[in-house]
């Protein structure tokens, strides 16, 4: 009698414990947003302590950065440690392009376009063969920059991006448009000329449209405005462009 | 042959153990240093032992008498503090040895282990295969030849140990407790092996605590006590002084000369 009572008591105790465990887990409130201030070691520490594993450490902190951004963008929109994480990852792995680009956009959300811009510049210095860095820098300057010069600065960035082999063909057009918008018509004309030269049929049409928007209508003034192209375009291409720009003009 | 001063390692000179002698040990001393303070402990205190060719000699003594150490020094596994050892064989490759409580490579099969031992003696190809097969048959392990040694019983390990001691067809065989762990059938097989070796003229020296086996197999015994050989002679001579070898042994190790035991 005593035996089965003891067994029953043991079973009841175990069931009660199991029930308590399940109930506790099931009714746990969702995790509150963690502290946005995270300890991020200095890159120097890892470069000294584990040079052979720096890219693995960079990857680990990159994943942490992605999770950190993901968590806080849904909760408190606070990214206090994001600049340090971005600096750590990109210092340990200067060719980790994705990390720069992700961090650059994430830092905009963090209200730090200045850090974002500086990060892209650093990325460009470390990866001069990647057109995305100057292109995004140009975009950030255009979108978030202040001051009268921002369009011209953005245009210069797009121009640098366009000079990288393999870059998209719309970059010269962007550079030209921004130069015109920034008030540097001469530069814009040259850029449109380059876009006409380097592009296909579509790009040439766009170049003609772009020039039409900034050139004076009066023939002589138009010709003076196009003078910079004489030194920057081959004769045959220039004649073709001029033929389109002066179609309908009477001598 | 020079005898070293205390503390020096002996310088031996070639000159022979003498005809008909397989093993000659003279004045062998061995001191080891134990513990944190490296306290010197003298294990061998001047061992003198002669084993003649073709004999089967039993080396007896209580635990800690120095039997195993004597054998190890004879094989060069340990350096003597003083004294000399001379082997009456062409080289160490003519000697076979079974250590006490042998342990072998767990993940090798019996066949692989013997083949490995044979390779160490430079045996190759077909000769090695045939020798291994014959040895496995001799020790009754043909059916377990391809089983890993970790699955062997103690007795099977003892038998493979004897097989590896014989892989080079030695002229002198040193066996340390060859009967340990064997069931009666195993002991009979080992005794037969030793008798076969004796029949072929192989010299055998073995340590054992099983005095009935010693009585059965040996023509000659040496009894050690506290690092010395205290009695050395034929089995018949021992039995002339006591009813059984056990009784003789107890008298020798219990008091030796003082107990009136004649050499």
């Amino acid at each position, binding site marked *: 009698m005593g035996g089965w009572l003891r067994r029953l008591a043991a079973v009841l105790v175990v069931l009660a414990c199991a029930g308590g465990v399940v109930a506790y887990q099931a009714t746990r409130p969702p995790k509150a947003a963690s502290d946005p201030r995270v300890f991020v070691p200095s890159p120097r520490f890892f470069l*000294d*302590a*584990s*040079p*052979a*594993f*720096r*890219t*693995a450490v960079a*990857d680990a902190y*990159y*994943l942490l950065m*992605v999770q950190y951004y993901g968590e806080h963008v849904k909760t408190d929109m606070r990214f206090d440690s994001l600049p340090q994480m971005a600096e750590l990852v990109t210092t340990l*792995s200067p*060719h*980790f392009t*994705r990390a720069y680009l992700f961090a650059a956009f994430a830092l905009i959300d963090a209200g730090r376009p200045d850090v974002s811009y500086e990060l892209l510049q650093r990325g460009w210095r470390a990866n001069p063969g990647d057109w995305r860095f100057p292109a995004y820098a140009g975009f950030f300057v255009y979108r978030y920059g202040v001051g009268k010069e921002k369009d011209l600065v953005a245009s210069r960035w797009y121009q640098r991006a366009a000079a990288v082999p393999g870059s998209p063909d719309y970059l010269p057009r962007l550079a030209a448009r921004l130069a015109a918008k920034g008030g540097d018509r001469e530069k814009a004309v040259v850029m449109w000329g380059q876009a006409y030269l380097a592009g296909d049929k579509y790009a040439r049409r766009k170049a003609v449209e772009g020039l039409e928007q900034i050139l004076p209508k009066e023939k002589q003034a138009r010709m003076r405005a196009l003078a910079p192209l004489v030194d920057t375009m081959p004769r045959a291409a220039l004649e073709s462009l001029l033929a389109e720009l002066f179609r309908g003009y009477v001598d | 042959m020079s005898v070293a001063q205390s503390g020096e*390692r*002996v310088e*031996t*000179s*070639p*000159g*022979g153990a003498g005809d008909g*002698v397989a093993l000659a040990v003279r004045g062998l001393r061995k001191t080891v240093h134990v513990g944190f303070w490296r306290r010197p402990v003298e294990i061998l205190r001047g061992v003198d032992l002669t084993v003649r060719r073709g004999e089967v000699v039993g080396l007896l003594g209580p635990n800690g008498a120095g039997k195993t150490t004597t054998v190890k020094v004879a*094989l*060069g*596994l*340990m*350096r*003597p503090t003083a004294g*000399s*050892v*001379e*082997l*009456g*064989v*062409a*080289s*160490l*490759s003519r000697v*076979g*040895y079974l*250590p006490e409580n*042998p*342990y*072998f*490579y767990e*993940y*090798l099969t019996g066949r*692989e282990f013997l083949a*490995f*031992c044979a*390779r*160490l*003696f*430079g045996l190759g190809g077909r000769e090695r295969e045939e020798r291994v097969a014959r040895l496995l048959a001799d020790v009754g392990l043909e059916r377990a030849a391809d089983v*890993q040694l970790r699955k062997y019983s103690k007795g099977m390990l003892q038998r493979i*140990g004897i097989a590896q001691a014989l892989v080079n067809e030695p002229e002198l065989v*040193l066996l340390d407790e060859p009967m340990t762990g064997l069931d009666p059938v195993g002991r009979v097989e080992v005794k037969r092996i030793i008798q076969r070796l004796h029949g072929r003229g192989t010299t055998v020296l073995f340590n054992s605590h099983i005095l009935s086996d010693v009585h059965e197999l040996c023509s000659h015994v040496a009894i050690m006590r506290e690092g010395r050989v205290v009695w050395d002679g034929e089995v018949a001579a021992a039995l002339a002084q006591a009813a059984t070898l056990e009784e003789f042994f107890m008298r020798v190790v219990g008091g030796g000369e003082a107990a009136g035991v004649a050499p």
Partner: protein
Amino acid sequence: MSPVVCCAPPGDPARRRDGAGLSQVGAIAANTFRETIRDRVLMVIVVFALVMILGALWLGSISLGQEGRMMKDFGLLAVTGFGLIVTVFIAASLVRKEVEKRTVFVLFSKPVSRGAFIVGKFLGLSLTAAAVLAGMGLFLFALVWAIEGRPSGMVLAATALVYLQVETVMAVTILFSTVASAILSAVLGLCVFVAGQLSDNVLSLTRLGHNAVTEAASWVVFVVVPNLTAVDVKAAAVGEQAPDWGSVALWAAYLVAYIVVALALAVAVFRRREV
């Protein structure tokens, strides 16, 4: 028949008579390889390593399109870590286990020299390490190929050079095991690996010393600790700086020489020891 004289020091060349040295080395190496590769603990560790490499796939899934890079970095980390654990712990117990289990008596009662024993053990374990690392490296290579759609030769090159680093640590661990216990040898072996990653820092220390004694001590440590980072190309596998192969080749030769010295020391020490 003239008697042979016993009791020359163990390991003395005069002791080793018949039995060609190289064939003994080969026999011990083959034996060691068979013993170690069949060890079930080794299999468990290798399976675990493969699972960890597969785990890098999960990390890749949260990396916003960087699956290939994550697989390479964390995969090579697993290859290095597990390769090291396997070889250091086996190397540490290789000699010690034989002494404790007394299989050395079986070996040295035959015409086997201490040198052949140490070198044979090292070569046998090298074969085992090669099998383990090759297995993990090829597995990783196949996964990276499947993810990125193209083969990455750098993954194989990085694995091969990890093998060289592990071999170096193994040789030093075997040296330690001739004088220390298995656990201590393993710990010291791992410390040598860590120190080998910090060789450049030790060099800096030699230039910071304010007195001759610390500078000299730093120099000794710098020379003694193997420079393992010089043959590390893991960063190149994920697109960081391309390695200078000429320099890597020279440093690889340095590590081979280092291994030879470590083994020679191990043989010299083991010869002096009674087993």
